[in-house]
């Protein structure tokens, strides 16, 4: 429609001749088709030597070929293939055939016959292998043509006997990718000279024959083909289990690596089936047996295999608990599988000191000989697998082992208990990554465990680590940890305070940690409260300094414990109550509301005291709903008093947002929305609409600022809040359209030139159209709204002149009804706080002009979607220069759901200043309306209209996400 309007407008107003857009791109394609294949043909004919031909082919391969011309090209290639005597050229042609058959929209059925024909006549092994690869590609393109696939499989079977490993490899790959297990292969029809009359067999047994191939590469390919079958959802028979196990002790690492996977796959398929133990007449579950086998591989010679084995262990949840627990016990070496009843006896034997631990001097002095028949040093499989894995030389293996431990421990609480010591040991690893990972893992399994005092001790020792990540991970861990005694609490507190004094920047994190520690263990905190607060039954103790972070830390612990322990406040002294009131106000996220006997009056905020209680959240929600309903009762905002109501509601909502953090998002959202409405109403009420045009310049300016403000606010509404539904977004767009209409009218009134207005009009109409496109389904909710009216008038609008359009808009704007907002379930406002730099430092950051200085930035982001791409850092220099820096994706860490932490460095540089001056650093949220939530439904034709100025779909901008922080910097001139 826009195109239509445009054309018409051009006819009317401009003399510029228009380039027709009618040129159909498809035509171009048709032209290129014959030329392309023809060109290739000519090139290949021209080629005098194989090298030349190869060059042409390589050149050709770089360009894409359209679906329609593929077949022609293929014919030409095949023709040359038959003529060509050079192997390398034939090889390249074969590979090109494969590439071409992958072309979108091309059905490669027609190539199959030719490819198979060429295969039969081919002598070179390499070319054969390549041709089979081509067939494989063709086969994967035609998954539902049974006949073709059957033929391909037959071909593969025939060439399986090739003497060249590459051909066998490809055949196996083909069988793996295309073969089916259920149906037996059709008997080979041709009785060639070498062909033996083989019995009818299925793909699986055929592949498994090659498990014993002499070439390790073929063995690997065979296992991989089998795995491929499994991936395609075929059920693999258990019969190959023994073979797979045997292969896991192959001489070649790639075979072993594949075999481990095979064993694992089988163990997942047949966990409960029973396998015999060799050299004894007992049997065990297959999953246990394979678990033992894979554990064995954790001490393999090749680290690649070790990593693989360790990873796979993590996913074997069905394994029996006693096998699982063996993995952590290096000393337990009785062969459990054979003498299960002797388990305990064997353990005692070991306790009696046959082996020394190496921890105490001379404890390996030989003692009486024990019966060693039941003792097995190596073959007991699972024994100590994780002990080995965690001690491995390569950190890749260690990480894999830690992760496996984690996933196994999550499914088995008893195992979690056991692996605790080992994980704690990993806190001492030499590689930070491993340490960090093990802390995270411990956090994940911490629901299952309660730390003993000694364990807590070792955990806490890490608090002194100089790496911030480690410390924070540990704080996070402590938040989720259960401890057993009050000594533990004390120990944790002491260590955390030590941490606090050593690294003051950890303040927030430590407080938060103590908050959870307190609320988790109220009964453990209770007995030590007097000690913590250093109160004395008879004497008054001096009042502690309220600004001491350590004291605040203690208070946070105590107050959070007191929340669920009503007897505790009785132990508080007077100043504690005062401090409570202070902290409750200043650190409300850390200090919960307490029911203090007779102390209600001291609570700082009256509203809080009355509004809170058990149902505080509900009542707040009710309040929110009530206010919205009250506002929605207003039909016309121009009625006196309506605006006052709106203003009061906005104020109420803002206050509510401050008080109720859970509802902050919703309340803010509503308040902003209402604010937009208010601004709009006020703007429309201005007298300027009745005034003569030349007189209203001042008002004009006022209204246009209002309109711009509304525009800004709408972008904020759309992109800053998460959890919005289409309806809300549509309402926001409606408001935005209103603002734009307002602006349009203003432009029309102030500018004389028609051309300018014309462009703006056109753009506006596009906006309206795109609104219709995006929110078609929501339109029923928009009765009597601005948009609805516009859309009704749309046919007229497109046809009328700009000035008429402006007039129509003006009336519609004034008549349109105010759209009421329906609140979605949960709205979160994206927010960010810069923790560092604090902006309090008076020491300027000095650096030499022309060089850079790195500024550490530490910020927390909440409810930001996709922060890696949207969050930017803005640096504003006093001279108005502003730099926007994109932090690396690696700088974002996610400590918890909905929370992101940005720790990055910003490089500053500037020419010389005479004095230290402040720069501002803040975080921005970048948005582009093309990334709007609705853009997925963008119609395809939009893309073909690249020539036209794209509609609002490319508006990009930034929203301030955090408060700016000021940093003193001082670039000094370089000394010469």
């Amino acid at each position: 429609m826009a195109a239509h309007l445009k054309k018409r407008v051009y006819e009317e107003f401009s003399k510029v001749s228009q380039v027709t857009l009618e040129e159909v791109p498809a035509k171009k394609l048709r032209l290129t088709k014959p030329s392309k294949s023809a060109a290739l043909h000519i090139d290949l004919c021209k080629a005098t030597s194989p090298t030349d031909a190869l060059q042409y082919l390589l050149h050709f391969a770089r360009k894409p070929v359209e679906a329609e011309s593929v077949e022609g090209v293929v014919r030409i290639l095949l023709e040359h293939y038959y003529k060509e005597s050079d192997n390398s050229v034939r090889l390249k042609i074969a590979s090109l055939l494969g590439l071409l058959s992958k072309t979108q929209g091309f059905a490669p059925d027609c190539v199959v016959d030719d490819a198979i024909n060429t295969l039969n006549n081919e002598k070179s092994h390499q070319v054969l292998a390549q041709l089979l690869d081509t067939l494989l590609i063709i086969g994967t393109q035609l998954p539902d043509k049974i006949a073709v696939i059957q033929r391909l499989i037959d071909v593969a079977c025939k060439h399986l006997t090739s003497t060249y490993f590459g051909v066998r490899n490809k055949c196996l790959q083909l069988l793996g990718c295309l073969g089916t297990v259920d149906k037996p292969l059709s008997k080979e029809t041709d009785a060639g000279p070498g062909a033996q009359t083989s019995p009818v067999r299925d793909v699986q047994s055929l592949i498994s024959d090659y498990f014993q191939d002499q070439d390790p590469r073929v063995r690997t390919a065979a296992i991989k083909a089998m795995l491929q079958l499994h991936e395609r959802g075929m059920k693999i028979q258990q019969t190959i289990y023994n073979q797979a196990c045997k292969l896991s002790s192959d001489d070649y690492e790639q075979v072993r690596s594949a075999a481990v996977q095979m064993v694992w796959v089988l163990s997942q398929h047949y966990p409960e089936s029973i396998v015999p133990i060799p050299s004894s007449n007992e049997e065990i579950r297959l999953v246990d047996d394979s678990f033992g086998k894979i554990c064995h591989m954790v001490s393999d010679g090749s680290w690649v295999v070790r990593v693989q084995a360790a990873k796979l262990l993590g996913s074997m949840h069905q394994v029996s608990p006693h096998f699982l627990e063996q993995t952590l016990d290096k000393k337990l070496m009785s062969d459990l599988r054979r003498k299960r009843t002797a388990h305990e006896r064997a353990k005692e034997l070991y306790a009696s000191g046959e082996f020394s631990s190496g921890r105490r001097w001379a404890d390996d002095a030989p003692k009486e000989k024990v019966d060693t028949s039941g003792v097995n040093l190596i073959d007991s499989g699972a024994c100590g697998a994780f002990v080995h894995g965690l001690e491995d030389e390569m950190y890749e293996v260690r990480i894999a082992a830690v992760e496996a431990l984690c996933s196994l421990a999550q499914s088995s609480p008893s195992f979690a208990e056991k692996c605790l010591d080992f994980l704690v040991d990993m806190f001492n690893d030499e590689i930070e990554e491993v340490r960090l990972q093990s802390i995270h893992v411990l956090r994940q399994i911490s629901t299952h465990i309660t730390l003993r005092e000694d364990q807590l001790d070792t955990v806490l020792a890490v608090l002194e680590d100089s790496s911030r990540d480690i410390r924070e991970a540990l704080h996070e861990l402590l938040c989720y940890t259960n401890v057993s005694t009050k000594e533990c609490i004390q120990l944790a507190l002491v260590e955390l305070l030590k941490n606090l004094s050593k690294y003051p920047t950890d303040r927030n994190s430590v407080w938060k940690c103590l908050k959870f520690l307190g609320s988790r263990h109220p009964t453990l905190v209770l007995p030590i409260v007097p000690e913590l607060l250093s109160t004395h039954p008879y004497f008054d103790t001096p009042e502690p300094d309220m600004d001491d972070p350590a004291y605040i830390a203690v208070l946070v612990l105590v107050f959070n414990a007191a929340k669920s322990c009503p007897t505790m406040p009785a132990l508080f002294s007077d100043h504690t109550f005062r401090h409570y009131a202070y902290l409750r106000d200043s650190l409300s996220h850390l200090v919960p509301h307490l029911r203090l006997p007779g102390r209600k009056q001291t609570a700082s905020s009256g509203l809080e005291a009355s509004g809170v209680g058990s149902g505080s959240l509900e009542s707040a929600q009710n309040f929110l709903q009530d206010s919205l309903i009250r506002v929605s009762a207003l039909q016309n905002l121009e009625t006196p008093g309506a605006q006052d109501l709106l203003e009061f509601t906005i104020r109420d909502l803002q206050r509510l947002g401050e008080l109720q953090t859970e509802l902050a998002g919703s309340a803010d959202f509503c308040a902003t929305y209402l604010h937009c409405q208010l601004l709009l109403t006020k703007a429309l009420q201005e007298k300027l609409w009745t005034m003569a045009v030349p007189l209203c310049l001042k008002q004009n300016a006022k209204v246009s600022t209002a309109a711009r403000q509304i525009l800004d606010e709408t972008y904020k509404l759309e992109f800053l809040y998460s959890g919005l539904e289409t309806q809300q977004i549509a309402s926001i767009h409606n408001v935005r359209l209103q603002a734009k209409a307002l602006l349009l009218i203003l432009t029309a009134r102030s500018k004389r030139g028609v051309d300018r207005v014309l462009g703006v009009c056109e753009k506006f109409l596009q906006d309206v159209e795109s609104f219709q496109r995006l929110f078609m389904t929501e339109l029923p909710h928009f009765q009597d709204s601005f948009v609805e009216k516009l859309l009704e008038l749309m046919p007229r609008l497109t046809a009328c002149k700009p000035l008429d359009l402006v007039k129509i808009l003006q009336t519609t704007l004034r008549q349109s009804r105010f759209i009421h907002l329906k609140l979605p379930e949960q709205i979160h406002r994206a927010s960010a706080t810069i923790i560092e730099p604090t902006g309090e430092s008076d020491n300027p950051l000095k650096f030499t002009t022309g060089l850079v200085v790195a500024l550490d930035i530490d910020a927390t982001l909440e409810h930001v979607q996709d922060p890696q791409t949207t969050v930017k850092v803005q640096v504003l220099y006093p001279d108005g220069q502003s730099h926007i820096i994109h932090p690396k994706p690696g700088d974002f860490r996610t400590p918890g759901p909905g929370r992101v932490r940005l720790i990055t460095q910003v490089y500053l540089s500037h020419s010389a200043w005479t004095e230290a001056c402040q720069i501002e650093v803040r975080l921005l949220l970048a948005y582009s309306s093309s990334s709007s939530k609705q853009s997925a439904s963008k119609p395809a034709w939009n893309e073909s209209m690249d020539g036209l100025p794209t509609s609002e779909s490319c508006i990009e901008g930034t929203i301030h996400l955090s408060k700016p922080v000021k940093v003193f910097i001082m670039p000094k001139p370089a000394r010469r």
Partner: protein
Amino acid sequence: MPDIKITPLGAGQDVGRSCILVSIGGKNIMLDCGMHMGYNDDRRFPDFSYITQNGRLTEFLDCVIISHFHLDHCGALPYMSEMVGYDGPIYMTHPTKAICPILLEDFRKITVDKKGETNFFTSQMIKDCMKKVVPLNLHQTVQVDEELEIKAYYAGHVLGAAMVQIKVGLESVVYTGDYNMTPDRHLGAAWIDKCRPDILISESTYATTIRDSKRCRERDFLKKVHETVERGGKVLIPVFALGRAQELCILLETFWERMNLKAPIYFSTGLTEKANHYYKLFITWTNQKIRKTFVQRNMFEFKHIKAFDRSYADNPGPMVVFATPGMLHAGQSLQIFKKWAGNEKNMVIMPGYCVQGTVGHKILNGQKKLEMEGRATLDVKLQVEYMSFSAHADAKGIMQLIRMAEPRNMLLVHGEAKKMEFLKDKIEQEFSISCYMPANGETTTIVTNPSVPVDISLNLLKREMALGGPLPDAKRPRTMHGTLIMKDNSLRLVSPEQALKELGLSEHQLRFTCRVQLHDPHSDTDTLGRIYTHLKSVLKSYSIQHVPDGTVIVESIVIKVTSSAEEPNLKVILLSWSYQDEELGSFLSTLLKKGLPS
């Protein structure tokens, strides 16, 4: 049958003085040439007179291989090469070559300068000896001579420690030296490929030990040190200059860095600085972490560890001191120990083995009063801790290595007899391979069964391939016909025709003829016809021809029928077949003997 002979001159059921003689495929190799710490007389060195009573060793030994630089593995080297006399090549890895002379020189100084011994090797001798050294790289195959080749594998244990594979033809021996299967803070774990040697000679120092996880030990160690330092106490760690000392240094250094600790760490000077220098150089021989981070910072450039001065021992406040020697029997460590023993805040940590009779051994056994020279007694109030940081493989590690290498036989050295016995039983039980543990001077002979490689002519192979199934089954032996030619020390398998041609012989046909008497009333030609149809029905897949001149030809077998003059019913069937068709021929003769179906 060829065999491999192994005779330990030292380290047979004993620790110290490692020296093992191996004769394999006509070559004699000496593995390690160490000294014994426990003796000061002739027993200190291996008894080289075992090799020859008088004269030099050069003509009896093809090469000497040193596994690592510890004196119990290389201490006797200058004595052997310069005083007894050996001029052949000595193989050792680069780090060993670099550090070995320092230790030898130190050893010489102590024995000659301090103890005043005479008739000991001189500095010059050490230098001359080192000139004979050929350095080895890891995984590099070095050809000692035409037939003997050696290859070094990483062994952990100390910087530059190597396991060696010795190979003559298809027979091979692997000698582990000392090795460690668990990586530590500065070295990786020993590794070997599946080389399947005829015999694996392994150390067995910790044959009966299975150590706890390394991490527990490390954590305990760090915790103890940390606590003592926080308490304001002093920590003494007696170490030997090389090996464990570096590991513990790295451990403490990283811990200090991680925890931001300020208490000083000292390292007694002397050997150490030189040694640390080499550790810095041979970064490729260390573990993953150090190798990967040395670009940013070489881990051996310690930030927190400073050189020790005697006067520092009296400084107030906490400190950690590494001092030599490791068993507290003399030197600086003992001096410091004496100074600090009286304060219960202090601590001594013994990180390794202590020989009986040393102060270290005494205090580890809980002795609280020590008698010093001059009848003075010393009250031991400080805490005594033992932490095994020994870098030898434990029982599980040894088993793991066996599993990696898959040897056909096992031989244990460098361990106590009683412990070896236990491990020997285990090995025999687990792997069902024979295991030996010879004492010093005792020879173990292992019969090998080497396969003899034969060159086969390609034509013959292709012909066989064409005859048989699609692919040879790698796992199954297959018989084939051919002629074995043994000429000029080489073995070749060729087709008979080619053999005839090469040897210039003419081919002789060997035919068997056989008469079968048969009662048959028909005429000769009829009989022949009946034979033809009979055979045709029995032998379906063979070509059978009835030639007009009165013979039936089955493949190459000729059948004729004659009837004797006197008895026309008695037909004599003449069968003639060549040697190649023996099987078919005898089958036919038995078939015809049974008579024709009527």
